[in-house]
């Protein structure tokens, strides 16, 4: 922000903002500004835990529609004020933090379900709707978005689109970028645009995908049309324990290569099977690697797919069958892992090193990350599971954890340690065929690694940013783009 909050110019800007969205929706309260200074990124949480000041926005604005968003963006361009979109603040990469102050554009007031199209099976909604609220409304009409992430209760549809998020049923129904048909976006200069109405076309490059994953740096998503699905007649799960992680991975990959259509597969390495699966399910499990999968849809087809999948698990890879109960437990407790009491929390230091690679590389990526973490940081634990599976590969959801006694007391030293782990682990992933992230995005956490990941392609991204956002007002300093 270029003007001090003690200056009359600050009041002038406040008046202009009030003129656009109404006084109730221009917030400068300490409590709300504080609320927007911490998201789900470990560093701001740790900063607050240590009694340090977290960067606050100057204004928190809650627009009602794209027109108001557009007017605020035009105003911000006029005064060169940073604008940071905020959905639910549940992002783990610091993407929504007002690191340079300015305006937080809190999207949650834009929470309308606009239309359910029963013929095409689509739903159109404003981008600030909390995913659970949207899902509930669709359920009431007999449908589901099938977007069921662990943060369904707190994150917005716009936030998921901005981070290319994913849910537990991604293996069949896809990530959010597979679910979206089209978007309404307010560009960084304030134009309200719509991307093409359908995602499959040969009418030029896909603007929908340009904005999906752009983390608020290329504009503000104000409306989205997503696929809907009828609620399935049946959904069945089954779980197995394999003697080791390699065998479990081979079985999972084989299931995907068989082109059966599981709705979910999740594989926990030996360590996470002990530390997490057992704890959350409160269940005795044999030593080894836990793998769960499921099918849904018509009852007869589900049963038939399950039969073939069992053959792969049991006959070919000698998995120990935990039955449907072992699988149902996972489904019933799928969000429980994320509640306090089961989740890591400060003063521990922890991070989710998620990446994705093809099947021929994913184990190498896993071992490279695990080795680099455990060898360089012997005090850290490393656990991992593989949550989202594709025809060609799968996603690694690895975590490192430092117990409180191993985390430096000085917050600056804690940041340095934290970043050393991230840099080493992510570089190891890239070197072995992985990428810096699969569904949590980049934010400030991984921005500095974007050049390493993209190499000579990075200037293409930077060129797009510059063209769309000549004054660099949209979420500056994120995703590897320059700050103010």
């Amino acid at each position, binding site marked *: 922000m270029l003007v001090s909050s003690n200056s009359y110019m600050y009041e002038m800007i406040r008046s202009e903002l009030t003129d656009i969205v109404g006084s109730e929706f221009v917030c400068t309260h300490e*409590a709300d500004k504080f609320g927007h200074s911490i998201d789900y990124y470990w560093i701001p949480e740790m900063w607050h835990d240590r009694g340090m000041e977290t960067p606050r926005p100057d204004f928190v604005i809650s627009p009602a529609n794209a027109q108001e968003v557009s007017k605020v963006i035009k105003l911000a361009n006029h005064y060169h004020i940073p604008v940071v979109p905020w959905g*639910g603040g549940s992002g783990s990469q610091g993407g929504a933090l007002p690191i340079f102050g300015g305006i937080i554009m*809190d999207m*949650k007031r834009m929470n309308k379900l606009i239309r359910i199209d029963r013929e095409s099976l689509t739903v159109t909604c404003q981008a600030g709707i909390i995913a659970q609220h949207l899902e509930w409304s669709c359920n009431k009409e007999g449908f589901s978005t099938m977007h069921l992430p662990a943060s369904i209760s707190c994150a917005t549809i716009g936030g998921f689109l901005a981070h290319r998020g994913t849910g537990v049923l991604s293996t069949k129904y896809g990530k959010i970028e597979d679910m979206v048909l089209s978007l309404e976006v307010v560009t960084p200069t304030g134009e309200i645009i719509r991307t093409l109405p359908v995602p499959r076309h040969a009418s030029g490059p896909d603007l929908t995908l340009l904005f999906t994953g752009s983390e608020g740096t290329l504009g503000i998503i104000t409306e989205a049309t997503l696929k809907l699905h009828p609620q399935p007649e049946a959904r069945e799960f089954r779980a197995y324990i394999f003697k080791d992680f390699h065998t479990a991975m081979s079985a999972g990959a084989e299931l995907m290569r068989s082109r059966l259509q599981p709705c979910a597969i999740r594989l926990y390495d030996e360590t996470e099977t002990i530390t997490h699966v057992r704890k959350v399910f409160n269940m005795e499990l044999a030593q080894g690697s836990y793998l769960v999968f499921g099918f849904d849809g018509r009852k007869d087809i589900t049963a038939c797919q399950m039969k073939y999948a069992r053959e792969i698990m049991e006959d070919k890879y000698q998995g120990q069958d935990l039955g449907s109960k072992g699988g149902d437990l996972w489904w019933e407790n799928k969000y429980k892992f994320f*509640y*306090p009491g089961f989740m890591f*929390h400060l003063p521990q230091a922890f991070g989710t090193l998620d990446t994705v690679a093809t099947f021929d590389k994913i184990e190498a990526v896993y071992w490279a990350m695990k080795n680099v973490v455990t060898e360089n940081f012997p005090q850290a634990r490393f656990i991992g599971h593989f949550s989202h599976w594709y025809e060609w590969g799968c996603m690694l959801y690895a975590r490192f954890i430092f117990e409180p006694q191993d985390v430096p007391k000085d917050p600056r030293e804690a940041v340095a340690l934290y970043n050393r782990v991230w840099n080493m682990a992510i570089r190891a992933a890239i070197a072995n065929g992985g990428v810096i992230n699969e569904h949590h995005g980049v934010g400030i956490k991984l921005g500095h690694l974007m050049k390493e990941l993209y190499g000579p392609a990075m200037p293409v991204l930077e060129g797009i940013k510059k063209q769309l956002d000549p004054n660099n007002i949209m979420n500056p300093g994120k995703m590897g783009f320059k700050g103010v």
Partner: protein
Amino acid sequence: MHIDKYTDAILNCRFCFMCRHLSGIGNVAFTESDTPRVRASLLYGVTTGRIQLDNPDVIACLYRHDLSGACRRNCVKHFDEIGLNLAARADIVASGCAPASIQALADSLMQTARWTVDGSGEVLYFVDLYTQETGTVAAAFAKIMAKAKVSYQTVSGGCIGKGLKTLGYLPEAAAAAKQFAAVVEKSGAKTVVVSNPAAYDALVNDFPALGIKLAATVMHTSEYILSLALPWQNPQEVYYLESDFLRNYNSDLPAPHSLLQAVGAKNRPFGTNDEESYTCGEGAVLLPRIDASLVEKLAQYIEARADAPSTDRILVASPYTKLMLGKYTSLHVQTLEEFVAEAI
């Protein structure tokens, strides 16, 4: 400080997002600060000295909470973010930082308590201020009792401590509770029946926590009417909106549902889910006098979720919720007593 007793809620809620979809005020005001995460984070800042509890913005934030208990109920470990908020209010009051409007409200509650007991019988029906304000709920209860041929006493005249407790005035709340307990004792009643779930919660939870043991059994009207095992039927299609106090504070008290079943009502699910609070801020007891605009928003949020707002028959356990929905929406709302009495 009172909040020191809630360290586990502070430490667990401060960075947790898992119940934000149930944050009543957050959902209607679209604010980040009206969530258990931010309130707990602010209070963590208070414990470290980084944030001051005399900050007017922090105080305003803490008094906006609708105290529905929906988040605590949803929480896998049931961390007591409600207890934490009430403790923070008590600390604000104890440190002399209560806003003038809150102080005035508390004063008015302390001054109005003038208990009157009428009638005779072993049942004492407590007509609290909200029940009284409806003008119809106590009459419905009277009609049921007349038909059941049970004579009873009524007691009315003030706050039994619940309102004062939610404002953070703990010693004053305790004094009010003791005064009421003495009135009950003097009445000789064996059973105290209340329509307002807030009063029910005060009598079954707050009183024992204060060391006050009533000689009488406490029953919500739904429990009491059910115990009468009357033959009336009212087999209509209704939408019963759960009470914060009966569901979220008292482990899903089964009586309202059992009563509906007993009278043959066909209860349809309201809204899109059974997790949110649809009470207009019942848990906060005095929210209309703290910020009426929030109550109006909560009421409109409920109306927007009705299947057919102009024709749906909405039932509530709480006279408070009936009053607020009546004031701010066009919904047709009855309490359980009224619904049962209608069939007589």
